[in-house]
């Protein structure tokens, strides 16, 4: 049973999986055929073997390419960069399809309480991107509106302005979600929405 215990331990390291869920998953896997399990483990192991971070924007990409599909797309606007904390956030914006500029994925937010410092996420490479004769004209922060998000965007703003003073720095708007009913909107959001009315 030591082997099963090891599997449970490994599974419970995944986000959102506690020990109970890990046990359920482990015993489910025990009942699968060897073929199915081989497919699953192949799918998992192929991720690090074939995927890497884009050198420019840190989006995930195929190892055999030079830059990611967004950075290499010449039809996209090169002057705007949206800064997000995760690749999931990037995918959410891409799914909308409206934004046709560049991205920069930080892979986290500065969070002193969680021990995430300035060297742990991809901050310096964004500052590098805007240095000197850069094509970039605007940086748009689309970070979670909490203390960590705010700390990260202020830090980046300060660092960017030190190396390039001509860049416009903006932040996505805070307000009432479209289609929602005013009475159910969180009070803090409603207050912000009234403050930032257009």
């Amino acid at each position, binding site marked *: 049973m030591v082997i099963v215990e090891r599997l449970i331990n490994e599974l419970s390291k995944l986000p959102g999986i506690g020990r109970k869920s890990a046990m359920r998953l482990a015993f489910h896997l025990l009942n699968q055929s060897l073929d199915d399990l081989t497919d699953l483990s192949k799918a998992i192991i192929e991720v690090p073997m074939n995927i890497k971070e884009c050198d420019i924007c840190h989006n995930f990409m195929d190892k055999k390419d030079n830059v990611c599909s967004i950075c290499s797309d010449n039809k996209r606007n090169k002057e705007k960069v949206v800064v997000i904390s995760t690749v999931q956030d990037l995918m959410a914006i891409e799914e909308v399809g409206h934004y046709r500029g560049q991205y920069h994925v930080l892979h986290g937010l500065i969070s*002193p*309480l969680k021990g995430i*410092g300035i060297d742990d996420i991809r901050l310096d490479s964004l500052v590098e991107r805007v240095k000197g004769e850069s094509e970039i004209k605007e940086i748009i922060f689309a970070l979670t509106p909490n203390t960590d998000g705010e*700390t990260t965007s*202020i*830090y980046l703003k300060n660092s960017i302005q030190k190396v390039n003073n001509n860049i416009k720095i903006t932040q996505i708007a805070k307000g009432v979600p479209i289609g929602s009913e005013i009475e159910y909107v969180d009070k803090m959001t409603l*207050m912000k929405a009234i403050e930032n009315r257009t």
Partner: protein
Amino acid sequence: MFLKNIKINNFRNIQNEDINFSKNINIIYGDNGNGKTNLLESIYYTTSLKPIKKKHKLIHLINENSKASIIKSTFENNDYKEIIKIAITPEKKALIYNQNNNTNIQSYLHKFKSVLFTPDDLMIIKGEPQKRRDFFNKAIFHLNQYYYSNLIEYNKILKTRNKILKDIAEGDKRQLAILEIINEQFTDISLKIYQNRINYLINYIPILINTVNQLSKKDFLPYLIYKTDFNYKNRDDFLSKLKSKQKREILYKRTLTGPHFDDYKIITNDKEIKFFGSQGEIRLFTLAMKIAHIIYVKETTNNYPILLLDDISSELDSNRKEFLFNFLKTIDSQIFITTTAINHIPKLENMDFLEIKNGKTNWK
């Protein structure tokens, strides 16, 4: 709004009671150890989701012969009913408000307000500054629901700031840039908290002075001073004071100043009552502080909170008891009073008497 009915299951020594209350004055009497305060606490718990004694844990609230406790209460608000169910297990408590178990706690607590008077209230004046901050934090929250969000945010930024100071003290100099940013956030949230506190005090202090003078035959010149290191109106001043302390803070690895260090000083005739007041004077002031808050709540929201008086009449001399009960007579609030003997309490109209014996209740 008033508490019409409460059904209590295994809450402290009360095993199974179903009680209808009057919307006026409910006197709960019985000998010590029979559960008067426990009954009062079940109401306090419903309106604050906290035990009366801060250090009591959930398990202390549950009857020793049981594994869980349930309090179900029905409030009547003009012509509609509010039904609240609170389930307590040793691990956690659950609130079900009008059959919804996803209630925003902050707006719930803002809606169901109560003010508790206990013999321990003396500590608000005699105790450490934390006791006064707790009293005023709750009072300000009664009038401004968002004040708690501010406090929660403040505590988070404070924690972050302490962690950064510790990192820097332990040699991580890169965190200095982050500290600059956190200082700005710390300043903004601190100024917000000051603003809330000062707004409250501006209206509260005149009511307090008035109440003290009515309560006392002596000529008091009472005043309340908010004690802080900062000029709370000036952002630049705050920020530069904060920076001036930075070296020391890095040495101590924590924040050494801010709203969580401030105090409320109560002064009479130029002396701080905490140090110079007699026991009787301190008692008078704590009573006045609570009554003044109740008057302020009424003036602002047009509603009285529910008043819970735990064995307060035995603590007060006859003059103050008379004043308190004259005050209670004038207000249109639901009131619960516990006492060991009915004759400790001046007779008023609209009083109903509930006897409690071994956790069992009986209307008389």
